[in-house]
């Protein structure tokens, strides 16, 4: 076995309200690709950000090449030979490849403040050559594809003489050929003795590239295994292995057969690839999938927030044209964004204003003043109905808890009389108690005949709440499950089914 480059043990990390890492371990050897897998929110990225000096750890030890070290900044990580390539690339688009690689460490010419552009370009070229990359160091980064920009990041990381390279979802935005190129570079680095941490959601990749796999779940270390010794199914069951966190699922009443919303052949660039589905009155339709699968994109497209390339939308059997969110609202469609603070609430305004914000026109008097007594009664009605905990209607939205904020957003759309409600991650950042209240609310709404789409990354939540579950991967619908047949394993399998696999499946089916 090769030398151990990094040994992390007993790592603890708490963010306000979330225990992100509990007694986590991780070990990386020279010349290995070590995959780190887990569901959304399992703590993979957090663990690696601790190693890369982005977050300070609360407790635990990090040993780098036999020496215990304190890593309290990205700079300190670099000095220990650790570089991380984040999911959002950290490049300056207006600068050239060479300028990006050597930012902050420019070779200087005369007087100590002049740049030696020639030397920068030469050094960059040498570096790119060692990676077998045919890139012009003088090309601007903004003009490169994501894959090439990633290569620039790798080159930059190696220019710090990194022995540990952490890559967070490096293949998420790449095409198949680009992934192959990336893997070739990774293999070459592995031969040179670099240790590579590969965080990925795409399980079938791991078989191709990794030597060992560490599975994390809910901020806990589950196990580290040799890739050759396990099957994908075993990894999946390790990933989802927890018992469902609450009592029996409260399956809602059966929906009617009336179709509230039908979407046919929705397409939008690379993010939505031919999505069709039906939503019935009184139904809760779960949308599952990994982050970036295209679920939010579908919701935004239906809501008119993003333009679509092609596709048809039918509301209650009638085809409709939705070009903007206000068109969608007129058709009775509401979208409750995953990011309440940014899109859902006027966070600095009071409960009452937020509640009637979407329907102010209804409360105007003949000369344009607002009939405050009516807005007050309406707001109070929904505060009572949704049992929003606020001392009064004048309390600012930002001073309420996440759960109550979410209820205000729901209340806002209920005052607007919408029949089709799209909830995007309705319980994100909400504590467990408030979660079950939101669940109850969703059930009540469905029972009243509202049609509900619930996008959620939490498998237990989807399983517990949905009548039917649609699973997406890479902009496609890869599976549909009824509440009775759905299990976490099945969903996970569909959610990691990449395009090549889907193609083969349907091919064989056709034959």
């Amino acid at each position: 076995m090769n030398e151990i480059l990094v040994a992390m043990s007993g790592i603890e990390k708490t963010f306000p309200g979330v225990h992100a890492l509990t007694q986590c371990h991780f070990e990386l050897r020279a010349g290995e690709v070590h995959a780190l897998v887990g569901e959304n929110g399992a703590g993979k990225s957090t663990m690696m950000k601790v190693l890369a000096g982005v977050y300070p750890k609360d407790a635990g030890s990090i040993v780098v090449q036999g020496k215990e070290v304190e890593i309290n900044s990205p700079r300190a990580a670099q000095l220990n030979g650790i570089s991380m390539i984040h999911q959002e690339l950290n490049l300056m688009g207006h600068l050239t490849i060479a300028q990006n690689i050597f930012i902050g460490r420019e070779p200087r010419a005369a007087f100590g403040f002049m740049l030696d552009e020639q030397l920068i370009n030469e050094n960059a070229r040498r570096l790119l050559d060692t990676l077998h990359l045919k890139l012009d160091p003088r090309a601007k980064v903004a003009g490169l594809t994501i894959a090439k920009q990633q290569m620039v990041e790798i080159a930059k990381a190696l220019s710090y003489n990194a022995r540990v390279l952490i890559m967070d979802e490096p293949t998420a935005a790449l095409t198949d050929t680009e992934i192959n190129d990336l893997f070739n570079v990774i293999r070459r680095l592995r031969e040179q003795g670099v240790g590579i941490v590969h965080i990925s959601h795409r399980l079938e990749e791991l078989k191709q590239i990794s030597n060992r796999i560490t599975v994390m779940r809910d901020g806990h270390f589950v196990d580290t295994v040799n890739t050759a010794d396990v099957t994908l199914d075993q990894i999946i069951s390790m990933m989802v292995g927890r018992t469902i966190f609450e009592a029996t699922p409260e399956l809602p009443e059966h929906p009617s057969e009336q179709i509230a919303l039908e979407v046919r052949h929705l397409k939008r660039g690379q993010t939505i690839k031919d999505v069709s589905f039906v939503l019935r009155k009184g139904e809760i339709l779960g949308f599952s999938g990994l982050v970036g699968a295209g679920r939010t994109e579908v919701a935004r497209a239906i809501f008119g927030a993003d333009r679509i390339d092609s596709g048809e939308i039918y509301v209650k059997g009638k085809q409709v044209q939705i070009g903007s969110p206000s068109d969608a609202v007129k058709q009775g469609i509401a979208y409750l964004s995953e990011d309440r603070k940014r899109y859902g609430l006027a966070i600095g305004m009071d409960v009452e204003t937020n509640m009637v914000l979407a329907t102010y026109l209804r409360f105007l008097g003949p000369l344009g003043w607002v009939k405050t007594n009516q807005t007050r009664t309406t707001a109070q009605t929904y505060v009572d109905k949704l049992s929003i905990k606020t001392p009064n209607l004048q309390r600012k939205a930002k001073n309420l808890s996440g759960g109550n904020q979410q209820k205000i957003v729901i209340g806002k759309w209920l005052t607007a009389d919408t029949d089709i409600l799209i909830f995007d991650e309705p319980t994100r950042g909400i504590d467990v108690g408030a979660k079950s209240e939101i669940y109850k609310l969703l059930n009540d709404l469905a029972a009243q005949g509202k049609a509900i789409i619930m996008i959620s990354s939490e498998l237990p939540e989807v399983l517990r709440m949905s009548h039917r579950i649609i699973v997406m991967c890479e902009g496609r619908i890869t599976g549909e499950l009824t509440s009775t047949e759905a299990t976490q394993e099945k969903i996970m399998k569909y959610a990691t089914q990449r395009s090549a696999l889907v193609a083969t499946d349907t091919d064989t089916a056709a034959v």
Partner: protein
Amino acid sequence: MQVEATSRPPLLRSLVSSDSTQRLLAFAGLIILIIVFSLASPNFATQQNAVGILLATTINGILALGVTFVIITGGIDLSIGTVMTFSAVMTGVFITNWHWPLLIGVLGGLASGALAGLVNGIVIAKLKVPPFIATLGVLYVAKGLSLIFSDLHPIYFTDTPIFRTFAMGSVVGAVLPNVNIPNAVLVLFAAAIVASFILTRTILGRYTFALGSNEEATRLSGVNVDAWKIGIYTLCGLFAGLGGVVLAARLNSAQPALGQGYELDAIAAVVIGGTSLAGGEGTIIGTIIGAFVLSVLTNGLRILSVPQEWQTVVTGVIVILAVYLDIARRRAVR
């Protein structure tokens, strides 16, 4: 199997996004303006008028050079107009009131501008006040200080008649007797060359672009972002100081009530020249072209006897047009 194409078409992208497009547009606009005015009036294309245009561009051009740096970082400096006045007044105070030697007085004037820029930089980088607000504050402070130090009266450089030749003498005229280009114009071009050098060849210039392109990434690369930002605002203040000294020499006096509004002309020149208000791109040559577009426009309209108020209206339309083109170009890229 299917072929995916996530990459945007690189050729189209580089065509529409290259910062030379806007600059070419501005340059073409400048040439068209010159041709149109030459055809419209025989009084436009004369040597005397050309010198007039050159001289009219100097102050705005110098201010625009400095603020180009700030705008490339994605910031803004609204204080340069009154900082220019402040520097002019301080030059007057040093030379006329305090009887400092001429050269020291001039350096003092430049330093006053740099000091104001330093204050801008510290307030923005360290106190994290948004540039718009920070420099708006310094705008008022500099305006007030100008009135205080000058005691509300213009300061004349009567004791040092040579000071005026700094701007209005003609070194060129001494060599080529028929071409009386004032020294102020030479100062503008010298300043432009220096600015261009700093922007493209030095570390300061590199970090100017890096900050505007992605400040967080620059910080994560270990660059002391705050210090460089302060340096950039100080440089901008220094250019405003140079503008103040040249203005004082040209008028042979420091006028404490002048200056406000100059910042907007300078920003307009920068924007017309293709520097993006979103940061990350821009050139000095573009700014110079932008400054000339504005002064040719003003001069030409005046020769065609277009009333002053309409000249202002046209200038406004041109600025909006230039920024709209910038935005449309950006939208085409996304």
